[in-house]
Protein backbone atom coordinates (compact mmCIF):
# COMPACT_ATOMS: atom_id res chain seq x y z
CA UNK A 1 0.00 0.00 0.00
CA UNK A 2 1.19 3.55 -0.82
CA UNK A 3 0.23 6.61 1.25
CA UNK A 4 1.21 10.28 0.89
CA UNK A 5 -0.13 13.37 2.62
CA UNK A 6 0.20 17.10 2.03
CA UNK A 7 -1.29 20.28 3.51
CA UNK A 8 -2.53 23.13 1.34
CA UNK A 9 -3.51 26.69 2.18
CA UNK A 10 -7.19 27.66 1.97
CA UNK A 11 -6.78 29.72 -1.20
CA UNK A 12 -7.76 29.19 -4.84
CA UNK A 13 -4.12 29.93 -5.72
CA UNK A 14 -3.34 26.52 -4.23
CA UNK A 15 -5.45 24.61 -6.78
CA UNK A 16 -2.60 24.25 -9.33
CA UNK A 17 -0.43 22.87 -6.47
CA UNK A 18 -3.16 20.37 -5.55
CA UNK A 19 -3.25 19.23 -9.18
CA UNK A 20 0.54 18.94 -9.42
CA UNK A 21 0.76 16.98 -6.16
CA UNK A 22 -1.94 14.49 -7.16
CA UNK A 23 -0.67 14.17 -10.73
CA UNK A 24 2.98 13.54 -9.81
CA UNK A 25 2.07 11.10 -7.03
CA UNK A 26 -0.30 9.03 -9.16
CA UNK A 27 2.14 9.09 -12.06
CA UNK A 28 4.88 7.71 -9.77
CA UNK A 29 2.47 4.99 -8.66
CA UNK A 30 1.93 3.95 -12.29
CA UNK A 31 -1.73 4.98 -12.53
CA UNK A 32 -2.94 5.16 -16.16
CA UNK A 33 -3.36 8.55 -17.82
CA UNK A 34 -7.15 8.22 -18.06
CA UNK A 35 -7.63 7.31 -14.38
CA UNK A 36 -5.07 9.93 -13.36
CA UNK A 37 -6.93 12.70 -15.26
CA UNK A 38 -10.22 11.69 -13.58
CA UNK A 39 -8.72 11.72 -10.08
CA UNK A 40 -6.85 15.01 -10.62
CA UNK A 41 -10.05 16.72 -11.78
CA UNK A 42 -12.09 15.25 -8.90
CA UNK A 43 -9.47 16.49 -6.39
CA UNK A 44 -9.52 19.94 -8.02
CA UNK A 45 -13.32 20.06 -7.71
CA UNK A 46 -13.32 18.80 -4.10
CA UNK A 47 -10.63 21.29 -2.98
CA UNK A 48 -12.36 24.11 -4.89
CA UNK A 49 -15.65 23.32 -3.12
CA UNK A 50 -13.96 23.39 0.28
CA UNK A 51 -12.28 26.75 -0.44
CA UNK A 52 -15.36 28.41 -1.98
CA UNK A 53 -18.15 26.89 0.11
CA UNK A 54 -16.80 25.47 3.39
CA UNK A 55 -14.60 28.54 3.83
CA UNK A 56 -16.74 31.02 1.85
CA UNK A 57 -18.29 32.64 4.94
CA UNK A 58 -15.20 32.14 7.13
CA UNK A 59 -13.14 35.18 8.16
CA UNK A 60 -9.75 35.90 6.58
CA UNK A 61 -7.69 35.16 9.71
CA UNK A 62 -9.07 31.65 9.99
CA UNK A 63 -8.67 31.00 6.28
CA UNK A 64 -4.99 31.87 6.69
CA UNK A 65 -4.44 29.72 9.79
CA UNK A 66 -6.38 26.64 8.60
CA UNK A 67 -5.18 24.17 6.00
CA UNK A 68 -6.68 21.48 3.80
CA UNK A 69 -5.01 18.13 4.37
CA UNK A 70 -5.03 15.86 1.33
CA UNK A 71 -4.17 12.17 1.70
CA UNK A 72 -3.68 9.85 -1.26
CA UNK A 73 -3.71 6.11 -0.69
CA UNK A 74 -3.39 3.29 -3.21
CA UNK A 75 -4.17 -0.29 -2.32
CA UNK A 76 -4.22 -2.83 -5.13
CA UNK A 77 -6.49 -1.32 -7.82
CA UNK A 78 -8.18 1.33 -5.65
CA UNK A 79 -7.08 4.92 -5.08
CA UNK A 80 -8.59 6.67 -2.07
CA UNK A 81 -8.43 10.44 -1.61
CA UNK A 82 -9.27 12.03 1.74
CA UNK A 83 -9.56 15.82 2.11
CA UNK A 84 -9.82 17.13 5.68
CA UNK A 85 -10.79 20.67 6.61
CA UNK A 86 -12.34 22.58 9.49
CA UNK A 87 -14.57 24.95 7.51
CA UNK A 88 -18.36 25.16 7.56
CA UNK A 89 -20.03 21.78 7.07
CA UNK A 90 -20.75 21.28 3.37
CA UNK A 91 -22.37 18.02 2.33
CA UNK A 92 -21.89 17.50 -1.40
CA UNK A 93 -24.49 14.74 -1.41
CA UNK A 94 -27.15 17.44 -0.91
CA UNK A 95 -26.11 19.43 -3.97
CA UNK A 96 -28.78 18.92 -6.68
CA UNK A 97 -27.83 17.79 -10.16
CA UNK A 98 -26.94 20.66 -12.53
CA UNK A 99 -29.74 22.00 -14.68
CA UNK A 100 -28.44 23.73 -17.80
CA UNK A 101 -31.81 25.40 -18.41
CA UNK A 102 -31.71 27.08 -14.97
CA UNK A 103 -28.09 28.08 -15.63
CA UNK A 104 -29.01 29.60 -18.99
CA UNK A 105 -31.95 31.41 -17.42
CA UNK A 106 -29.54 32.90 -14.88
CA UNK A 107 -31.46 31.25 -12.01
CA UNK A 108 -28.60 29.01 -10.92
CA UNK A 109 -24.85 29.18 -11.38
CA UNK A 110 -22.92 25.95 -11.63
CA UNK A 111 -23.61 22.69 -9.87
CA UNK A 112 -21.33 20.96 -12.37
CA UNK A 113 -18.42 20.30 -10.00
CA UNK A 114 -20.17 17.86 -7.69
CA UNK A 115 -21.74 16.12 -10.69
CA UNK A 116 -18.28 15.73 -12.23
CA UNK A 117 -16.90 14.23 -9.01
CA UNK A 118 -19.79 11.76 -8.76
CA UNK A 119 -19.33 10.73 -12.39
CA UNK A 120 -15.54 10.47 -12.49
CA UNK A 121 -15.07 8.63 -9.20
CA UNK A 122 -16.43 5.22 -8.16
CA UNK A 123 -17.76 6.55 -4.86
CA UNK A 124 -17.78 9.80 -2.89
CA UNK A 125 -18.59 10.21 0.81
CA UNK A 126 -18.73 13.07 3.25
CA UNK A 127 -18.33 12.96 7.04
CA UNK A 128 -18.40 15.69 9.67
CA UNK A 129 -17.05 14.81 13.12
CA UNK A 130 -15.99 17.14 15.96
CA UNK A 131 -15.83 20.11 13.59
CA UNK A 132 -13.70 18.30 11.03
CA UNK A 133 -15.03 17.70 7.52
CA UNK A 134 -13.84 14.70 5.55
CA UNK A 135 -14.45 14.36 1.84
CA UNK A 136 -13.59 10.86 0.71
CA UNK A 137 -13.22 9.97 -2.97
CA UNK A 138 -12.71 6.39 -4.16
CA UNK A 139 -11.58 5.36 -7.63
CA UNK A 140 -11.44 1.77 -8.80
CA UNK A 141 -8.69 1.80 -11.42
CA UNK A 142 -9.57 0.55 -14.87
CA UNK A 143 -6.18 -1.04 -15.48
Amino acid at each position, binding site marked *: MFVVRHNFQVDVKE*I*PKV*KSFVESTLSNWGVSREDLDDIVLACD*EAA*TNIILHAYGPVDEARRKSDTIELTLRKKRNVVEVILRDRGISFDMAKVPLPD*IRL*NLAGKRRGG*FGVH*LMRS*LMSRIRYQCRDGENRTILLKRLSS
Partner: protein
Amino acid sequence: MIRTKQVGEQLIIYLRGRLDVQLSAEVEREINEILEKHPKGDVVINLAEVEYMSSSGLRVLVAVMRILKANSRRLKLCQLNSPVRKIFEVVELMDMFDIYETEEEALAS
Protein backbone atom coordinates in the same frame (compact mmCIF):
# COMPACT_ATOMS: atom_id res chain seq x y z
CA MET B 1 -4.67 38.73 -23.03
CA ILE B 2 -7.13 36.68 -25.07
CA ARG B 3 -6.53 36.55 -28.84
CA THR B 4 -9.47 37.14 -31.17
CA LYS B 5 -10.05 37.15 -34.93
CA GLN B 6 -12.92 38.67 -36.87
CA VAL B 7 -14.10 36.57 -39.84
CA GLY B 8 -16.92 38.33 -41.65
CA GLU B 9 -19.60 38.92 -39.04
CA GLN B 10 -18.31 36.16 -36.79
CA LEU B 11 -15.80 36.54 -33.99
CA ILE B 12 -13.34 33.81 -33.06
CA ILE B 13 -12.04 33.79 -29.48
CA TYR B 14 -8.94 31.69 -28.78
CA LEU B 15 -8.68 30.40 -25.22
CA ARG B 16 -5.52 28.78 -23.94
CA GLY B 17 -3.93 27.25 -20.84
CA ARG B 18 -5.87 26.34 -17.73
CA LEU B 19 -9.55 27.10 -17.20
CA ASP B 20 -9.69 26.38 -13.48
CA VAL B 21 -11.10 28.26 -10.51
CA GLN B 22 -7.99 30.42 -10.21
CA LEU B 23 -8.12 31.78 -13.76
CA SER B 24 -11.75 31.44 -14.86
CA ALA B 25 -13.01 34.68 -13.29
CA GLU B 26 -10.34 36.66 -15.15
CA VAL B 27 -11.12 34.84 -18.42
CA GLU B 28 -14.85 35.53 -17.98
CA ARG B 29 -14.16 39.23 -17.35
CA GLU B 30 -11.99 39.45 -20.48
CA ILE B 31 -14.56 37.66 -22.64
CA ASN B 32 -17.29 39.99 -21.40
CA GLU B 33 -15.15 42.98 -22.39
CA ILE B 34 -14.59 41.43 -25.83
CA LEU B 35 -18.33 40.85 -26.28
CA GLU B 36 -19.07 44.47 -25.33
CA LYS B 37 -16.67 45.62 -28.06
CA HIS B 38 -18.20 43.17 -30.56
CA PRO B 39 -21.96 43.46 -29.97
CA LYS B 40 -23.06 41.68 -33.17
CA GLY B 41 -22.60 38.33 -34.89
CA ASP B 42 -22.05 34.76 -33.77
CA VAL B 43 -19.06 33.75 -31.66
CA VAL B 44 -16.73 30.79 -32.11
CA ILE B 45 -14.58 29.79 -29.14
CA ASN B 46 -11.54 27.77 -30.18
CA LEU B 47 -10.45 25.50 -27.31
CA ALA B 48 -7.50 23.81 -29.06
CA GLU B 49 -4.96 25.27 -26.65
CA VAL B 50 -6.95 24.70 -23.47
CA GLU B 51 -4.89 22.06 -21.69
CA TYR B 52 -7.12 21.69 -18.64
CA MET B 53 -10.66 22.64 -17.73
CA SER B 54 -12.63 22.18 -14.52
CA SER B 55 -16.26 22.99 -13.80
CA SER B 56 -15.18 26.61 -13.30
CA GLY B 57 -14.34 26.79 -17.01
CA LEU B 58 -17.60 25.11 -17.90
CA ARG B 59 -19.47 27.76 -15.91
CA VAL B 60 -17.73 30.49 -17.94
CA LEU B 61 -18.84 28.92 -21.24
CA VAL B 62 -22.42 28.55 -19.97
CA ALA B 63 -22.38 32.22 -18.89
CA VAL B 64 -21.11 33.29 -22.33
CA MET B 65 -23.82 31.23 -24.02
CA ARG B 66 -26.45 32.87 -21.79
CA ILE B 67 -25.29 36.37 -22.76
CA LEU B 68 -25.22 35.54 -26.48
CA LYS B 69 -28.58 33.76 -26.46
CA ALA B 70 -30.18 36.78 -24.81
CA ASN B 71 -29.10 38.75 -27.90
CA SER B 72 -30.12 36.07 -30.42
CA ARG B 73 -26.47 35.27 -31.13
CA ARG B 74 -24.95 31.81 -31.32
CA LEU B 75 -21.99 30.37 -29.43
CA LYS B 76 -20.04 27.66 -31.25
CA LEU B 77 -17.17 25.68 -29.75
CA CYS B 78 -14.46 23.97 -31.74
CA GLN B 79 -11.28 21.88 -31.46
CA LEU B 80 -11.96 20.39 -28.05
CA ASN B 81 -9.10 18.15 -26.98
CA SER B 82 -9.84 14.81 -25.40
CA PRO B 83 -9.88 15.77 -21.65
CA VAL B 84 -12.04 18.84 -22.35
CA ARG B 85 -14.44 16.85 -24.53
CA LYS B 86 -14.76 14.27 -21.76
CA ILE B 87 -16.00 16.94 -19.32
CA PHE B 88 -18.77 17.95 -21.72
CA GLU B 89 -19.71 14.30 -22.15
CA VAL B 90 -19.68 13.53 -18.41
CA VAL B 91 -21.99 16.42 -17.53
CA GLU B 92 -24.08 15.67 -20.64
CA LEU B 93 -23.61 19.05 -22.27
CA MET B 94 -22.60 17.85 -25.74
CA ASP B 95 -26.13 18.44 -27.04
CA MET B 96 -26.53 21.80 -25.33
CA PHE B 97 -23.55 23.36 -27.11
CA ASP B 98 -22.85 23.62 -30.84
CA ILE B 99 -19.56 21.70 -31.00
CA TYR B 100 -17.42 21.32 -34.12
CA GLU B 101 -14.21 19.48 -34.94
CA THR B 102 -12.60 22.38 -36.80
CA GLU B 103 -12.75 26.16 -36.88
CA GLU B 104 -13.76 26.04 -40.55
CA GLU B 105 -16.77 23.80 -39.79
CA ALA B 106 -17.82 26.11 -36.95
CA LEU B 107 -17.61 29.19 -39.16
CA ALA B 108 -19.52 27.49 -42.01
CA SER B 109 -22.44 26.28 -39.89
